[in-house]
């Protein structure tokens, strides 16, 4: 069983499919995420593919502070993803709420609604930072060998 587990972890690290979801960002982080997916940075080298549906995705890439209106949708999208799943918060707003923290219409960072595996700060986070963050998330998978549930 040890070998099967190792192969599984290897496959998970080599093929992260992502779903991009805007939870209330100003669009700057979204543009940087799209830039990271262009042929210039060529994320397919690491097996990353952008998917249209949460059913196919392994990593949910969120940008922006969570607004009250998007909260239910974010939880719903998260629950539609099959296990094991990970969440990456891109940008300062997604990490902590940023300048919108404490506003009447904002819940705060992504972690106030769903569990987050990796935080990538920056305003906006540059494509290189995003790639670095995702790579670090995958490295941590290898060490922990876990199923992706974060307590």
């Amino acid at each position, binding site marked *: 069983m040890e070998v099967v587990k190792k*192969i*599984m972890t*290897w*496959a*998970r690290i*080599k*093929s992260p499919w992502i779903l991009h979801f805007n939870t209330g960002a100003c669009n700057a982080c979204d543009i940087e995420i799209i830039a990271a997916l262009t*042929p210039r940075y*060529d994320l*397919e*080298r690491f*097996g990353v593919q952008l*998917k*249209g*549906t949460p*059913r*196919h995705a*392994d990593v949910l890439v969120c940008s922006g502070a969570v607004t009250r209106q998007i909260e239910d949708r974010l939880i719903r999208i998260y629950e*539609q993803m*099959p*296990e*094991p799943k990970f969440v990456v918060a891109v940008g300062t707003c997604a990490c902590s709420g940023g300048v919108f923290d404490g506003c009447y219409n904002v819940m705060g960072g992504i972690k106030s609604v769903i569990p987050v595996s990796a935080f990538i700060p920056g305003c906006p986070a540059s494509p290189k930072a995003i790639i670095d963050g995702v790579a670090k998330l995958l490295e941590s998978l290898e060490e922990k060998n876990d199923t992706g549930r974060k307590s």
Partner: protein
Amino acid sequence: MFESLFYILIFPGVLFVSVFGLAAEVMDRKIYARLQNRVGPPWFQTVADFIKLLGKEDIVPIDANPRMFRIAPLFALTSAVTVFLYIPLWGAQSLFSFNGDIIMVLYLLTVPTLAFFVGGWYSTSLFARIGSVRAVTQLFAYEVPLFMSILASALLANTWSMKEIASFYTQHPYYCFFNIIGFAVALVSLLGKLEKVPFDIPEAETEIVAGIFTEYSGRLLGILRLTIDIEMVVGSALLAAVFFPVGMTLAPVIGFLLFIVKVLIIVAIMALLRTVVARLRIDQMIDFCWKYMVPMAVCQLLMNLVLKGILFR
């Protein structure tokens, strides 16, 4: 009994055709990446994707019909793998060859599309249903030119079995060039059958999320992706066997390598077409098939009928 099991499960059955299909997809994606000036995925990418999907959770939507939802991908995979047993790999004969096997191969290649339709329809997601309807609409457009062009080649050989086609074209290798229009039509129709760009209308990512496959996840999605890979290899092998059955009488190993090369060349041409064109709308696709491809296929049929009169008087 034991021998048949070996044929079905290992070579040239499930195991071999799966590995070949996954390898062909890597090649397809690598060529696509190189033509866009980027490095592209590593060689093990599709294997990693497949293993990862096997290890993921299977979600069946609450409104979906669980039995139909689960059985459709298996049905598609089975029929796609079965086709490969009837395609001659070398020595001018497939394992289970009989008169009329080309008709059965074409029929079995239609089954995956219908199974995708059933799977998409019973997942009851709106996107999946739109995708399913598009897949079947598309089926009526590309199926006719595909059948006509492949059967035109068989018509010239005056037989409906792949074995006879191979031996006929081995005797008269230059007759292959008469079928060049038919080959072009069949190649473009095959792109429609495989739901690849420019005919990826049923799973158009930018319009309807992932089309038929929207609600599929985990193991079932892995099976569906494997089915499409196998369909790609099998379709290319069919084209290679029908339009270029040269070198079939060579020694087993060389003949087999030649067969692999032929299949990979057809896959490479499809990757090239995928890079240089954009997606059509469903109405444009149907117009294109019925206005240009069908007349070309009819031309090929008439040409072969006339040629038959001239050559074999």
